[in-house]
Every structure is written in structure tokens, then in C-alpha cells.
């Protein structure tokens, strides 16, 4: 058999080559091939053939697209006709464009959101080589990740593992920062100097190596807050930590940090200050809030894991009371997507699932909008059958017609894109930012990404929504059109299934929305277990100040009772391990003055509160959960060892909430009365006098401690931010459900228009023969009612099931299921559907049958 050149290359040549040249080119190539076959062998001949074909692939040999000039001329016409048809069918166009632009707006917003989160903290050029050392801890037999790690682990790693470049610890305390007359309480970060080598926080002035024993580096907003327009460099700042005052010279100022940085130092001091202030030691017991290390990119991870295993053993021996089950290095870039997984993390962020689900939502919205558009576009083409027929008769080719519809479609998409971008910029993104706790700028991580995204979205939108109609419409036979035989499509099961899917989602989200809102409202009314109104608390570390302020508080007539404590419910919770006999769990411990529980309006379940004259040093008051955890049937008089001392339970209080309902609330609590140095003053006032009391005390504070900031907390406001968060989530759900309802009604509108257009003649004949409006409405809607029933039948149970789970993870208490929110959701959906259907059905009921039938 004769050898022939590779077919693939030959076909490629055939595809691109100009018709007038192909014979000679091909002939030459084949002749050469045969020559080479003899001299070089088959394999090399094939290769050379491929190469030659590629070399012929140049502009002068490539076939020009057919009648390209005609095409460019026609595009003007297509655009004109496109604009006219948008104007003519303004109602349809309005629906199309608004649906598309809404989803484009959402798609852009969600993309910005995802882009933002996937590029979080990308300013750090070495970011991918930075890791945080985290601890695995076994809590109630589940593995939990904690951010803090032993103080020593960074140094140890640096000694034992040469491929590790730097390590830096981070810790925080609060202190009163003073410059001139400006005194504020600030969160102060302590870190090793290598921290600024690892992370690329920009500096506007000063040196990033200047973090020493007397120097301080501050952020630009701190500089503005304390120094205003003065240059802060070299200025002396006093910071008061508890009882000690230290002075520092400003050695550097950070520049503006991009918004997508979720971890930014504001006031930075050398780590040694932390060690001396807190009397912390570099050992396996004391912990740093975070330890970051940077590895060489070729580091041997196996060896490192081995080391970490050894460290785990060392730690367990050194600190048997809170053993770690493992240490792990987690890439810094991933930490921001571990919110909720990594406890006590100093890097904020979002969890990955959330980011992805938001991105998926955006894609789904776009898909639905496109599919709705397909239905509406095909339906509206019926009114233009004559135009298509005439175009075909006048010599319009099939591809020409398809092009016309595509052009029109891209026109619509272009308008929708513009409106979508505007909607995103002015409406959706600001709205989103208002709801979310983080600010997302209208910017992309790179310019090329932005261009790719917009061009991609435009093409995707245009082809997806316009491709099928263009293909479908252009296929019509001219004769069929003029004979009037062309009815559009049969039953499109595809679009019916799609519509069912959309309504399924619409039902799910709207029911979910109402169930969530119902729960969110319920949460707001849930009792905290005590009455927080009228309670003020003041974090005070100095005994003299505390006594003085308490004294002043006693003088105000609005004050009912005052008390002091070490740690304070809700404001400063103290979670400590409890280890007694077989019981091992974490409890909240507050060391209080007798009278604290009464001041806090707590209620007794049994026993008594602490009493002043009883000498309650060896007594404790616990909550019901503690009793439950200990499995006591008669808690009073039980004795345990707590923090090394034997204690007797004298009272049990009813459970109270120390944290908002979205976290692991309600821990076992132990109130002791050891007389530890108090750090909180609690003032209970008459509910209507709280503000006056606060103002009065602020006034007095100026004479008590002119150099310390006045800090007070209204117990009532404790959960305000969490309530706002719940509100934000509620709004998010409402927006989402409004959008799905809107889009699915658009879909219904489109499909209905399609059906009615097809059956107009049938309905007209029925009307002539005496069918009533009710009859016709019923006929027209029969199939849609089934769609709705199916969607509801699947959607409602799913919504109820999913929301039940969701609400339970979101709030630790949930309202028992009630029918009211479901009923409201269903009613609203049905109402929207009825309005949509009515808008279309009106056409049928109003039409004069003669108008439709006269053409026959």
C-alpha cells in the first residue's frame, strides 16, 4: 500500500488554504513527501510534512472569510434593526435587560468578592514561604486547631532546622497610649524584629530594622490619631501597661496597607517588652498568640514533621495539664480562609466554603438570566418571522440571519453589561460592603484579569444567551414561514425542566429566607439569662482608681449597687481548664466580690449567693451546666478541687449567656470568691439613669486619673455587633431570594409568552366558539401549575431541612419550626407568580379573535 501523508495535517491544510492555491501547494507537498519517504523514512517525512503545512499557514495563503465586505456593511443594518426591535418590544427588552443586568451586576460583585478573598494578604511577596505554627488540641474527643503555640517553638525550630529562615512571635496586650493630651486605650502588638523581614508591610518613614528596646513603629492611622499633622518620627510616646509606664520613640511609620490585607499591625513593640511585662518565659508552657516561620522553598517537609512530632512529646512532658496532640505548619496564605476552623487566629478572613458558595451563586444567577433570555428571545422571534422570511428571500444567508440575531443579542448584552457594572458600582457592592464586616474595593487584583473577565463575561453572555436562538431561528425555511406553517418549536421539555429548577430554587431561597428571618427575630428576644439593662462596667487595673471611682459611683442617686470582680461576664471571659478526677473540660471562671451576682441580676436556682460575712473563700457558685457536666443530682454541698484548692458548692445559678448565640455559648461556670485583685468595677443603675451615671462618672474620672482614658461598657450593648451581623445576614438572604424570585418569574414570563404566542390561534378559535376567560386562563396555565407544584413539592421540604441545619450551626439556639414563615414565603411567591402570569394572560383575554384569525 502506498504511504500517504498524515491526514490531520492534510485536513488542516484543506481547512485554511485558499481554494485557488490549494491544488499546487498540496501537490508540491505530496511530491516532497514522497521524495522524503524514500530518502528519510516515514517518520521524518511525516514530521517534515507537518512542519511544511505549518509554514504554509500564513496570511497570504489563508482563505478569506466569504463576502466579508457584505458582512461589515450588514452589521450597521443589524445594529439599526436591533435598536428598533429593542424599542418596539420595549416591555420584553426591559425585562431582558433588567434581568441580564441584575445578574451581570451580581456576577461582577461576586467575582470581586472571590477575587478579593483569594488574593487576601497578597502584598507579602514572600507570603507563600511563611507558615504559622498551630496547635492541635483534643477537646471533648474532637480535634481542634488553635493559633497560639509555645513561646519557645520558633527559636527551637530555628536552631534545629537549618532550612528555616526566620521566626517571629506575636502577642498582644492592651495599654493606655499617651502623647501630649491624647490618651487612648489601644491594642498593642509585640513581635520579634524578624517579623518585619518576613512581612512586607510598606513603610513611609523610618527603617524596618529599627524595632529595638526603646523604639515603636506605628501605623499611619495611629500617627494621624495622635500626632495630627506633626511628623511623628522621633517623638516620644508613653504607654501605660497596668501599673508600669514605659516610653518609646517613634522609629517608623507604616504606609497605607491595601484593603485586601486582613492582618495589619497598628502599634508595634519589641517582643522582649511582652516577656518582661507579663513575666512570661520562653518555655513550652507560656504561649505566643502566633508564631510565624519562613522556610526556604526547598525545605524538607518530612524532616520538619519529624521535628514537630518530637516537640509535641516535649510539650506534653513540660505541660501535662494542657497537652497538644500535634503541631502543624499552616501556610500563611491559607490562614485567612480558615475562619471558624482555626481558633484564636490573629489573621482575619473568610472561610473558603463561603467564598466559593458566593462565587457559585453568581454563576447560577448568570446562567438563569441567560436561559430566561433564550426563552424570551425565541418567543419574540415569532413576531419577526416575516422579516426573517424577507431577508432570506432577498438573499440573506443562514449565517447572515444567525449573525443578525447574534448582533442584536450582543447589543442587548452590551447594554446589560454597562447597566450591570453601574449597578455593581453604585448599588450592589456598596450594599454588600455595608452588610459584610469587611470592605471590598471595586478593583481587580490585576488589570489583565479585569480585561479577561469583562471580555469573557461579555462573550459568554452573548453566546450563551444568543447562540441557540440565532441557530434556531436561522434554520427556518422561507416557504414554511410564508405559508404560515412555521410554529415555533413543539414542547420544549428542556425549558420546562429549567423553569422547574428555577422555581425550585426560588421556593428554597424564599422559604429559607423567611425561616432565617423568623429565627433572627427570635434570637433578638431570647433572654440572656439575666437583665443587662442599667449595668455598666469599667475595666480598671489600678486598685486606687477602682476604689475612687466606686466611691464616686456610690454618691450618685441613680446607682443601685456596685461590685468588683476579676474578669467580667460577657466583657472579659476567663476560660480555664477544669481537671478533677475523671472530669476534664473547660469552664468559665470569674473571681468575684460577694454581691457581684446580685449586681448582675442573676437568678438563683438553688442554694445561696456569696455572703459578705460568711467567709466564702472556700465556697463556689456554679451554673446549671456545670451541675449537668458533673452529673450531680444534689449539687449543694458537693466538694471539688478547683485550681488547686478544695471548694464547696453553695449555690447554683440559672444559666446565662456570656457570648452571643452564634458561638459555643453556655459553658459551665464557676464563680469563686478568692479575693483576687479585681480588674472590673460593675455599677448597676436605675434603667433610666444609666446614661447620666456614665456621664457623671466620666466627669469624675478626669479628676481621678487625668492621664488614663475613660472606658465604660454598657452591658446591654454587648451583643450589638452580633445583632448587626445577624441583620446583615438577613438582608443578604432577602436580597438573594428577591433575585431568584425575580429571575424565575422572568423565566415564567418568557415561557408563557412563548406558549401563548404559539397557541394564540387556538385560543382565538376557542373564544369565537364561546370559551370564557376563565376557561382560557385555565388552559394556558395548566402546565405551569404542574411546574409550580413540582418545584414547591421538592423545594419546600428541602428549604425547611436545610434551614433547620443552617440555623442550628449559625445560632446555638433555634426556634422550633413554625408554619407562619413558610406560609408567608409561599404567599409572596404565589403573588409574584400571579402578577407575572396576569401580565401575559391579559394579552390573550384582550385580543380580538378577528385580529389573529384574519390572516387565515
Amino acid at each position, binding site marked *: 500500500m502506498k504511504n500517504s501523508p498524515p491526514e490531520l495535517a492534510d485536513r488542516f491544510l484543506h481547512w485554511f488554504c485558499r481554494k485557488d492555491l490549494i*491544488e499546487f501547494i498540496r*501537490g*508540491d507537498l505530496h511530491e516532497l513527501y514522497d521524495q522524503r519517504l524514500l530518502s528519510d523514512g516515514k517518520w521524518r517525512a511525516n514530521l517534515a510534512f507537518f*512542519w*511544511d503545512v505549518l*509554514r*504554509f499557514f500564513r496570511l*497570504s495563503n489563508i482563505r478569506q472569510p466569504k463576502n466579508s465586505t457584505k458582512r461589515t456593511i450588514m452589521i450597521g443594518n443589524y445594529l439599526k434593526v436591533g435598536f428598533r426591535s429593542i424599542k418596539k418590544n420595549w416591555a420584553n427588552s426591559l425585562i431582558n435587560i433588567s434581568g441580564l443586568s441584575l445578574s451581570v451586576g451580581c456576577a461582577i460583585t461576586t467575582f470581586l468578592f472571590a477575587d478579593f478573598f483569594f488574593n487576601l494578604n497578597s502584598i507579602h511577596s514572600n507570603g507563600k514561604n511563611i507558615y504559622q505554627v498551630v496547635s492541635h488540641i483534643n477537646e471533648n474527643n474532637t480535634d481542634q486547631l488553635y493559633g497560639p503555640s509555645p513561646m519557645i517553638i520558633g527559636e527551637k525550630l530555628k536552631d534545629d532546622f537549618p532550612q528555616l529562615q526566620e521566626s517571629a512571635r506575636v502577642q498582644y496586650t492592651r495599654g493606655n497610649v499617651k502623647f501630649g493630651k491624647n490618651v487612648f486605650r489601644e491594642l498593642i502588638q509585640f513581635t520579634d524584629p524578624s517579623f518585619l523581614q518576613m512581612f512586607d508591610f510598606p513603610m513611609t518613614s523610618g527603617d524596618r530594622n529599627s524595632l529595638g528596646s526603646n523604639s515603636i513603629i506605628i501605623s499611619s492611622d495611629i500617627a494621624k490619631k495622635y500626632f495630627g499633622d506633626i511628623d511623628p518620627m522621633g517623638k516620644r510616646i508613653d504607654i501605660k501597661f497596668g501599673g508600669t509606664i514605659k516610653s518609646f520613640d517613634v522609629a517608623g511609620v507604616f504606609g497605607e496597607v491595601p484593603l485586601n490585607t486582613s492582618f495589619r499591625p497598628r502599634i508595634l513593640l519589641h517582643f522582649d517588652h511582652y516577656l518582661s511585662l507579663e513575666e512570661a518565659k520562653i518555655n513550652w508552657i507560656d504561649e505566643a498568640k502566633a508564631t510565624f516561620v519562613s522556610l526556604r522553598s526547598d525545605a524538607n517537609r518530612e524532616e520538619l514533621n519529624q521535628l514537630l512530632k518530637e516537640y509535641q512529646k516535649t510539650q506534653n512532658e513540660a505541660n501535662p495539664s494542657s497537652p497538644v496532640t500535634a503541631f502543624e505548619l499552616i501556610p500563611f496564605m491559607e490562614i485567612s480562609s480558615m475562619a471558624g476552623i482555626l481558633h484564636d487566629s490573629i489573621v482575619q478572613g473568610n472561610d473558603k466554603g463561603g467564598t466559593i458558595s458566593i462565587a457559585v451563586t453568581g454563576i447560577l444567577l448568570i446562567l438563569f438570566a441567560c436561559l430566561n433570555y433564550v426563552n424570551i428571545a425565541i418567543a419574540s422571534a415569532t413576531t419577526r418571522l416575516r422579516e426573517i422570511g424577507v431577508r432570506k428571500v432577498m438573499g440573506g444567508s443562514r449565517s447572515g440571519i444567525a449573525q443578525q440575531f447574534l448582533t442584536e443579542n450582543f447589543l442587548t448584552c452590551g447594554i446589560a453589561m454597562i447597566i450591570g457594572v453601574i449597578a455593581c458600582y453604585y448599588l450592589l457592592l456598596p450594599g454588600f460592603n455595608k452588610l459584610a464586616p469587611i470592605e471590598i474595593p471595586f478593583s481587580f487584583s490585576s488589570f489583565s484579569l479585569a480585561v479577561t473577565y469583562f471580555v469573557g463575561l461579555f462573550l459568554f453572555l452573548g453566546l450563551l444567551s444568543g447562540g441557540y436562538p440565532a441557530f434556531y431561528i436561522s434554520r427556518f425555511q422561507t416557504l414554511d414561514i410564508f405559508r404560515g406553517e412555521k410554529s415555533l418549536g413543539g414542547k420544549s421539555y428542556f425549558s420546562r425542566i429549567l423553569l422547574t429548577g428555577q422555581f425550585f430554587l426560588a421556593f428554597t431561597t424564599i422559604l429559607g429566607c423567611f425561616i432565617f428571618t423568623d429565627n433572627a427575630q427570635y434570637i433578638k428576644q431570647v433572654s440572656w439569662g439575666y437583665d443587662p439593662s442599667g449595668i455598666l462596667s469599667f475595666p480598671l487595673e489600678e486598685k486606687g482608681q477602682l476604689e475612687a471611682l466606686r466611691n464616686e459611683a456610690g454618691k450618685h442617686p441613680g446607682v443601685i449597687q456596685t461590685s468588683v470582680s476579676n474578669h467580667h461576664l460577657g466583657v472579659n471571659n476567663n476560660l480555664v481548664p477544669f481537671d478533677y478526677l475523671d472530669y476534664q473540660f473547660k469552664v468559665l471562671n470569674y473571681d468575684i466580690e460577694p454581691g457581684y451576682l446580685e449586681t448582675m441580676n442573676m437568678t438563683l436556682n438553688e442554694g445561696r449567693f456569696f455572703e459578705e460575712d460568711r467567709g466564702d473563700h472556700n465556697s463556689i457558685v456554679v451554673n446549671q451546666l456545670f451541675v449537668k457536666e458533673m452529673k450531680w443530682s444534689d449539687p449543694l454541698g458537693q466538694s471539688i478541687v478547683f485550681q488547686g484548692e478544695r471548694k464547696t458548692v453553695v449555690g447554683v445559678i440559672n444559666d446565662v449567656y456570656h457570648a452571643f448565640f452564634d458561638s459555643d455559648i453556655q459553658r459551665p461556670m464557676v464563680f469563686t470568691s478568692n479575693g483576687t485583685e479585681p480588674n472590673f468595677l460593675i455599677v448597676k443603675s436605675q434603667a433610666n439613669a444609666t446614661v447620666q451615671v456614665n456621664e457623671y462618672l466620666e466627669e469624675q474620672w478626669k479628676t481621678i486619673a487625668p492621664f488614663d482614658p475613660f472606658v465604660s461598657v454598657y452591658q446591654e450593648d454587648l451583643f450589638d455587633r452580633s445583632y448587626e451581623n445577624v441583620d446583615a445576614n438577613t438582608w443578604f438572604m432577602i436580597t438573594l431570594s428577591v433575585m431568584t424570585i425575580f429571575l424565575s418569574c422572568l423565566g415564567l414570563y418568557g415561557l408563557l409568552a412563548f406558549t401563548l404566542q404559539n397557541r394564540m390561534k387556538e385560543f382565538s378559535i376557542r373564544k369565537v366558539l364561546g370559551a370564557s376567560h376563565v376557561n382560557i386562563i385555565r388552559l394556558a396555565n395548566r402546565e405551569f401549575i404542574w411546574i409550580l407544584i413540582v418545584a414547591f413539592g421538592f423545594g419546600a421540604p428541602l428549604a425547611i431541612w436545610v434551614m433547620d441545619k443552617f440555623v442550628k450551626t449559625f445560632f446555638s439556639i433555634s426556634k422550633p419550626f413554625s408554619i407562619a414563615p413558610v406560609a408567608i414565603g409561599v404567599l409572596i411567591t404565589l403573588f409574584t407568580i400571579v402578577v407575572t402570569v396576569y401580565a401575559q394572560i391579559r394579552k390573550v383575554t384582550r385580543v380580538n379573535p378577528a385580529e389573529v384569525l384574519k390572516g387565515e
Partner: protein
Amino acid sequence: MGSTKGGNIGEFEELVLLVVGTLNDNAYGVSVRNFIIEETGRKVNISAIHEVLKRLEKKKFIRSEVGGATEERGGRRKKFFFLTADGKQVLDHSRELRNGLYNRIPQVGFNFSSLT
């Protein structure tokens, strides 16, 4: 482009033109390529030959005729090229120019100092 420049042609174009003239009745893509490879040892791709032939034909230095179908190319016809009068003139012209200039190279040898 080149046709407006009074028949100036490039070096490779001239070579191809010469080969077309040399091959007389048998100048088509493959034969021109093979001839150039054999005579000059240059590596030429067939597509480059086609390109130049197209250009020369456009400048009217060669004309083409479609030959009869032959067995060896799967029945495909060959496009034969012939030198036109214009083409011949261009070759003559460039040869004259070259010879003229060559003859004016001083016989003394390449005395560079006298050139400057």
C-alpha cells in the same frame, strides 16, 4: 511593493528568478526548491519558494501555466513558471549593474587607504 521600485528585487527573489529561467520548461515549486538546495546548499522551505513565486508573478517577472495531471502527485496538476520578458530584463539589468560595479573595483587591490 517592490514593483514600484523600478524592478528592484531582493537577493532571494533574484535567485529564484534565475532558477526559474534555468529550469526553463520544468520550473514548479518542488523543482525550484530541489534545484536551489542542490546548487547552493541553502536550507529553503517549500512555503518560502511559493511565497517568492507568488510575489514574482505579481510583479510580472514570471508567468504561470497549469500543467497536466501527473501520476506522482495523486493526480494533482503542477503550476509551471516561465520567465517573462520583464523578468529577463530585470536579470540582465542586475547582472549589468553587478558586472559594472565589479569592474570598477580598483585593480591595484583592495587599497582601503585610498577609499577614505
